[in-house]
């Protein structure tokens, strides 16, 4: 069927690209002229739509799912540019369809922001959903963590095929009980999980600060013992410096990993669970050989933009670690130990970062006390410096201007590997500066 809106939308898209305009504008145009465009196009996909949502790790996880499915020969449509809202999906679709509005793909894997995902699933029912976590993020937008959990629940309820849940996050785990049983037409439920030995490295927000410097997950009974947790389809058993062990189908598989950080690697278990569900349903039974190919693909996934990226500056590695909420920051500090590294922290409070700085007080910075922090930067550099002062962490200097701070940091830490913890817009500024002196992946 020919649709007039598609060529028009594509023209707008081409025009706004030329202008250097935003990626969502053409999506807005097609949404206005042909509101059913997205639904019609996506429902034509033979293996349906998978939605990835949750507060942390959506981008990297979505990227992993896509690469895993491609390793199985599936053609995948995804919203790669980080347009994780409905209009962004429509815009990405316009770029991918041909002039007749046909999408040449087997399956769509879409990263969606919690609130937008609810809007999206009301228009397009996903066959799969992968719900990662409910952490203290963007609370200034949704008010409360429990409300975020309700948003994820609504995504799960609309899912027709399989819902994949993080069994380690009590709020995500609880979603299972709100779903119709499969016998009554509800979706099937799969879990991804952690080995008991790794649970203490994954505090949920309820455990964040029960007392003093105790950072264990001790106050949550499920987090400690785990005996009442459901069995998981994929379990992350062990994380080494450059490798990891996953268990699925009753077998333990060891693989090297390009991804860094325990946190990202746990999301690899999530991606594996979703990809396995899609591959199985597509009729390509994951035989032993396919399982190997999945794991090989997993080992080759590189981190998404800014999520534990490693660049080279002056012959030394420079790691960029995106931090945007307390759990993310704590996991970042745990995943990337300070010893031997020069450290910089850049904190902005622009809209995309969140205006509320309270979260810095929910992170424990004791692990930086020994080596100190070389430079603190960003609009809220002094809030960060003050936070470090109260944890007795020495601060080498404070410079709110990010380019100036980065230059001072690089020249002051010559010959040393470097690490920068930064909020989202601080990371954009840092990448812009670094692209002047080293090769930085261009994000389209």
């Amino acid at each position: 069927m020919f649709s007039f809106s598609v060529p028009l939308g594509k023209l707008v898209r081409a025009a706004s690209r030329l202008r250097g305009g935003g990626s969502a504008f053409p999506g807005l145009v097609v949404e206005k002229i042909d509101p059913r465009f997205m639904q019609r196009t996506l429902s034509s996909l033979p293996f349906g739509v998978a939605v990835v949502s949750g507060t942390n790790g959506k981008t990297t996880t979505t990227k992993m799912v896509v690469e895993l499915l491609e390793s199985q020969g599936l053609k995948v449509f995804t919203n790669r540019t980080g347009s994780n809202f409905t209009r962004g999906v429509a815009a990405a679709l316009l770029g991918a369809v041909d002039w007749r509005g046909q999408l040449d793909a087997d399956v769509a894997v879409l990263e969606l922001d919690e609130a937008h995902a609810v809007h999206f699933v009301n228009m397009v029912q996903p066959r799969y959903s992968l719900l990662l976590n409910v952490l203290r993020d963007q609370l200034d937008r949704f008010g409360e963590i429990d409300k975020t959990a309700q948003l994820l629940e609504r995504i799960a309820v609309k899912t027709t095929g399989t819902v994949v849940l993080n069994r380690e996050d009590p709020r995500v785990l609880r979603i299972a009980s709100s779903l119709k049983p499969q016998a009554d037409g509800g979706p099937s439920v799969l879990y991804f999980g952690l080995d008991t030995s790794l649970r203490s490295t994954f505090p949920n927000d309820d455990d964040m600060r029960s007392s003093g410097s105790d950072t264990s997950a001790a106050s949550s009974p499920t987090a400690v013992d785990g005996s009442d947790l459901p069995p998981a389809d994929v379990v992350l058993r062990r994380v080494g410096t450059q490798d990891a062990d996953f268990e699925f189908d009753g077998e333990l598989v060891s693989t090297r990993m390009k991804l860094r950080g325990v946190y990202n690697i746990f999301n690899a278990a999530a991606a594996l669970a979703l990809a396995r569900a899609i591959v199985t349903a597509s009729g390509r039974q994951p035989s032993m050989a396919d399982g190997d190919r999945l794991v090989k693909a997993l080992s080759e996934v590189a981190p998404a933009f800014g999520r534990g990226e490693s660049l080279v500056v002056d012959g030394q590695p420079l790691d960029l670690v995106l931090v945007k909420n307390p759990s993310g920051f704590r996991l970042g500090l745990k995943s990337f130990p300070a010893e031997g590294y020069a450290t910089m922290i850049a904190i902005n409070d622009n809209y995309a970062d969140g205006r509320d700085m309270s979260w810095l007080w929910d992170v424990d910075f004791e692990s930086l006390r020994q080596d100190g922090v070389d430079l603190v930067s960003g609009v809220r550099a002094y809030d960060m410096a003050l936070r470090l002062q109260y944890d007795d962490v020495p601060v080498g200097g404070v410079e709110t201007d990010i380019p100036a701070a980065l230059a001072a940091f690089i020249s002051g830490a010559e010959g040393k590997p470097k690490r920068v913890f930064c909020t989202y817009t601080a990371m954009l500024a840092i990448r812009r500066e670094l692209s002047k002196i080293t090769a930085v992946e261009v994000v389209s």
Partner: protein
Amino acid sequence: MSAEESRMEYVSNHASKGTIRVLQLYPRDMNIYGDWGNALVLQQRIRWHGYTPELLEYNVDDEFPDDVDIILGGGGQDSGQLIIQDDLQARGPMLRDMAEDGTPMLVICGLYQLFGRFFKTSSGTIIPGIGILDVETHGSSERLIGNVTLDSPEFGEVLGYENHSGQTTLGPSVRPLGMVSKGAGNNSKDGHEGARYRNVVASYLHGSLLPKNPAIADFLIRTAAERKYGTFLPGHPDDGFAMLAREHAARRPR
């Protein structure tokens, strides 16, 4: 023994001007948006003033510790407020006696509301408070959210971040903590923020409140020391970062 422990031991054996016991109320269920920072700031500043801090916590069904010098309470989600409700009612008379007696207390957001007379939810349910503060709170569908600046007659300019949908109105026996120059404060009409009664400071401000407002932290510590030891001998905390953080925070948009 860690460096920290040996330092504490040294301080308590040789140089301490005395011990100050800080109790966090319900940190397990009422501790959100960095409220922990208030406890950390008191602990460190007590040390910087030359006293020895003891940080205690009280959760539902715990035994209530004796000889508490400062009480701290934070915000929580609706679920947290439900969990603590009965226990707080049972402890109400004792907490009220302590407040009347002059114990310095800081209560933020959720516990500010529950230290008042009641919280009436938008669906009409009444959650009783413990009535230390002559205030009442009504749930609303409007969320008051963003950076706040207020002018306090006692503490000067106070900076923080609010995030609440409860609208609190003050009765005649409390006074506001200050008048807002940016943000909403207690409710969307009156233009004031927080409540003061005896040595109780109540506020909606997270941020955390105390790090960028050391004057309030030092008020709590001074009051505790004077009640316990007759005098307060201040030390010299370095507030350079705090002052710069205040300057930069004051310039940020709502």
